[in-house]
């Protein structure tokens, strides 16, 4: 990002130090909610927590075990969220790539119309289709099941648009050359286009995974059996009402946040590349 070239010579050392000091400061601020959540989790069931626990010997590390003890099903919720978010992610990446491929590379009548249809779904808010989706899932008996949690989200207008735009940035000559060499259309998609589109695919995957992981209202609607709840719905049971005691709520939140944090760390490089792709030329 910043180029500490030798051109600046000795001047670069304080400059370097200052930059890092600021970066550390900013990252501490960005991490603050996490530290605060941890601090609240460890201070026991009190309505008068402090910013930083004052007595580190009385910290209640048992709170993490306690949330599992209170709701042993918490691990099942995490599994559910993982299965649902992964399945939706794979589905969205698959459907978006195929649709976008058709829009970007094939020539057929009604192409523009189909693109507008895909984009049009972005204009319809989720709340507007909620009841009809719910009635459908209810009718086919998919409540309290993975199908009910997954199927309504397998295609995404945003995904189609994102992939199409990315495909268009790749040189058309590649496609022509491949076809001349006798490469089939599906093989081109699989062996050439998708590997080249890794940044966009990673962006779409992480975005979809996190979005699905954080869903609240839909999983609440289509599940009644605690077995089938996802984490975001499940952990509301730790939220105290009538008084502000946060320890178990924060502990449970930290536990269910971990998997997404790990995913973000793994996908971060691809994600950043994907987000900035096309932002700079050359």
């Amino acid at each position, binding site marked *: 990002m910043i180029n500490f070239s030798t051109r600046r010579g000795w001047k670069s050392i304080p400059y370097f130090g200052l*930059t890092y000091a600021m970066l550390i400061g900013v990252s501490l601020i960005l991490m603050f909610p996490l530290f605060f959540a941890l601090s609240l989790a460890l201070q026991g069931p009190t*309505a008068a927590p402090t910013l930083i626990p004052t*007595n580190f010997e*009385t910290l209640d590390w048992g709170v993490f075990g306690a949330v599992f003890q209170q709701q042993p099903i918490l691990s099942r919720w995490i599994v559910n969220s993982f299965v649902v978010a992964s399945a939706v992610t794979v589905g969205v990446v698959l459907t978006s790539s195929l649709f976008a491929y058709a829009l970007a590379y094939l020539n057929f009548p009604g192409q523009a119309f189909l693109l507008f249809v895909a984009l049009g779904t972005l204009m319809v808010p989720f709340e507007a289709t909620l009841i009809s989706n719910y*009635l459908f899932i209810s009718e086919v008996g998919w409540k309290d099941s993975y199908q009910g949690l997954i199927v309504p989200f397998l295609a995404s207008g945003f995904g189609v648009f994102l992939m199409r735009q990315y495909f268009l940035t790749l040189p058309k000559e590649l496609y022509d050359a491949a076809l001349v060499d006798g490469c089939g259309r599906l093989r081109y998609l699989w062996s050439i286009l998708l590997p080249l589109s890794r940044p966009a695919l990673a962006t779409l995957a992480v975005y979809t995974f996190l979005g699905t992981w954080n869903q609240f209202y839909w999983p609440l609607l289509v599940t009644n059996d605690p077995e089938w709840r996802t984490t975001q719905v499940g952990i509301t049971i730790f939220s105290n009402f009538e008084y502000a005691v946060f320890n178990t709520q924060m502990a449970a939140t930290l536990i269910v946040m971990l998997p997404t944090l790990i995913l973000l760390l793994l996908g971060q490089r691809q994600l950043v590349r994907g987000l900035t792709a096309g932002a700079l030329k050359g």
Partner: protein
Amino acid sequence: MKKSSIILALVAFAMLASTAFFAVPTAFTQGNPTNTPVPTITPVPPVAKPEGAIEVTFWYGLGGLLGNVVQATVNKYNESQSKYYVKAIFQASYDDTINKINAGLASGDLPNVAQIFEAGTQRMIDTKKIIPVEDLLARDGLLSIIDDLEPAVRANYTVNGKLYSAPFNSSTAMLYINRAAFREVGLDPDKRAWSYDELIEAARKLTVKDSSGKTIRYGIALYPESWFFEQIHAVNDTFFGEPNNGRTARMEKYTFNNPIAEAYFEWQKKMIDEGTAIYFGTGGGAAAGAAYANGEAAMYFSSIASLRTLIASAERAGKGVEVGTVYMPRNPDAKGKTIVGGASLWITNTGTPEQQEGAWDFVKWSLRPEVQAEWAVNTGYYPVVRKAYELDIMKQGLERFPQFQVAIDQIRLAEITDANSAHISGVFVSMRQDVIKALDDYFTGKVATAKEALDAAVARANEKLEEYNASVE
């Protein structure tokens, strides 16, 4: 050029961040050791369903540790008989429970019983899927139970003269005081009724500054909350909306832009301006509670249901805070009482007749004095039937927590009228957001006068109310 802009951005970010640090409530910045052992969380797994029992679905919205008591109560019912089995399903919150019921109306996927907060009364009636509890009581010749209900609680769930739902967990709002601080500055902690002027004076006395002029204890911790504002109308026997708070016919308009409301706004603003109140802003309830329990503010508004948590937290904090309760502010001319919050049990007309009977059996059981007394003692809510007070377990509870008696007396201060019972409307939840915004706009100086803030809030609430009423009629 590029580098300098990056530095500029970083500096701006750092400045933003440092203001964020300063904005951290003071309650969180001062520490204290806690040596009390941490109470363990007791898991309450549901009991197994007996063979051949009729399943009754019960949706509830009370989470956390109080939610554990709900499950424990359901377990007790299931163990008390084997004909019915109540399956308790937690639905995230009261508001989500009612939203889910609304979504289920189209497919008929509804619970047999639901626990809904008082703000949802109109919406539940508007589902047209409710069997009024009073009809069932009359059918079984049990109307004497209604007469035994706590009058304020009964009034809260009675619409057009009919009891629609069975009260389950009831609370009211209190002004919490630090009794030790009151004694220290020569105020009487046993005086229950305080007028605005007396409280302004008390806040001045209770405010303590250190040698550098920094306030180390404020008179009162404030945060914008609609429930207390609604209480003030009931305390002054003033309608919150017309006609008749929506209790005899559908409410047509909110009328809380009145002198009673202005006086309440201006009273709090005066203390904020004088520096005897610390204002925590929207969503600041938790921080205000922490300031109170840590001894950094001598007074604070909260529900009576938080009494035990506050006592336990104050003990853990070890700052010598002695938790006491007094009435919501009452000027000498106030003739009303406070209103009841909490939730009630609604029976729907879904399911088989056997399931409906099971739902009714469970609700009937929940109104038993011994169930109510145990529920009250374990949660901090009122018993909703008066016979519960005759039981030893309740008597002992009241002896241990005399602060609770103040709350009971407060809801019995006046004869029941429509004006001193909570209003009923279909846009209760969003109206509360309008009130909170009005309070915050006025306290932070975004709006110059209380009247202006209130007029705007009433206009917004009425717009939504009209829309709602049009959608159900």
